[in-house]
């Protein structure tokens, strides 16, 4: 018999030490809420797979994190979300990419794991799979927040592909045209 444990993250990057309170506090509160949610679920005997999915759904629903509702935008101003889930005991897993309308991509990844003989579905086929299984979808405009429009505009100005929370700087663009900063 060992003890339960849980860990979660909301992304990594060049997060400024002087992050303003109005940006820091909501994220810390969300982390605390999601941690408490996961602890309660583990204490009530839910399987870790259910706990991990539950917590990630909650994080996806929070607009301040880069997933689900808070997803950042592509160069064309669209969203393309991706997710995966894995059960350690059985090594069963499921993954999805290129989602534009699915509210909780992590739950679609779990359906891929449980309802298909495959591991990974992407783009139109993943969207069709979501609709075939009654997964909640919305118009893709649901995911396009004013803050993420502003972040895309800023990234385009500097011709950079931008990691979570990293503030773009006016560096010389890389030759590949698909560079990163961190």
């Amino acid at each position, binding site marked *: 018999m060992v003890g*339960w444990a*849980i860990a979660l993250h*909301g992304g990594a990057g060049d997060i400024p030490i002087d992050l303003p309170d109005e940006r820091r506090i909501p994220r810390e509160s969300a*982390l605390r809420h999601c941690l408490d949610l996961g602890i309660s679920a583990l204490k009530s005997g839910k399987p870790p797979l259910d706990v991990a999915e539950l917590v990630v759904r909650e994080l996806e629903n929070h607009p301040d994190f880069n997933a689900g509702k808070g*997803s950042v935008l592509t160069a064309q101003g669209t969203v393309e979300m991706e*997710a995966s889930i894995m059960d350690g005991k059985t090594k069963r897993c499921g993954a999805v990419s*290129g989602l534009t309308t699915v509210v909780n991509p992590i739950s679609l990844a779990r359906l891929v794991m449980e309802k298909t003989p495959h591991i990974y579905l992407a783009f139109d086929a993943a969207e069709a799979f979501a609709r075939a299984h009654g997964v909640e979808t919305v118009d893709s405009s649901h995911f396009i927040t004013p803050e993420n429009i502003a972040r895309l505009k800023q990234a385009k100005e500097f011709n950079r592909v931008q*990691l979570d929370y990293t503030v773009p700087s006016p560096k010389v663009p890389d030759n590949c045209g698909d560079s990163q900063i961190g």
Partner: protein
Amino acid sequence: TVGCVAVDSAGNLASATSTGGYVNKMVGRIGDTPVIGAGTYANHLCAISATGKGEDIIRGTVARDVAALMEYKGLSLTEAAAYVVDQSVPRGSCGLVAVSANGEVTMPFNTTGMFRACASEDGYSEIAIWPNN
């Protein structure tokens, strides 16, 4: 990117990760999150969810390497995760959260910060963004 790893009192493990990717990414670009073994992995020893620069995490097979170091070299979860974050990916590119089957928790990163939280049955709990806060 967001993620969660969990282990119950019987040592059952799971990992989940979800993301919108990079700001201004090329349409059609796929990162590490849905690539099993890169951004997400779980077996009978541990569960890992990674975040950061997807291409570096894929090249480093980050999540699977943590499990492999435990499986083949007998490292603890903390040792294995620290090795991968320090040695397998460039600085400023990666963070991860991980739990082991015996309830160990670790959350290393080589970026400036990582939004993170953890708790275990022995009463330990942490919510943090930067190192040592």
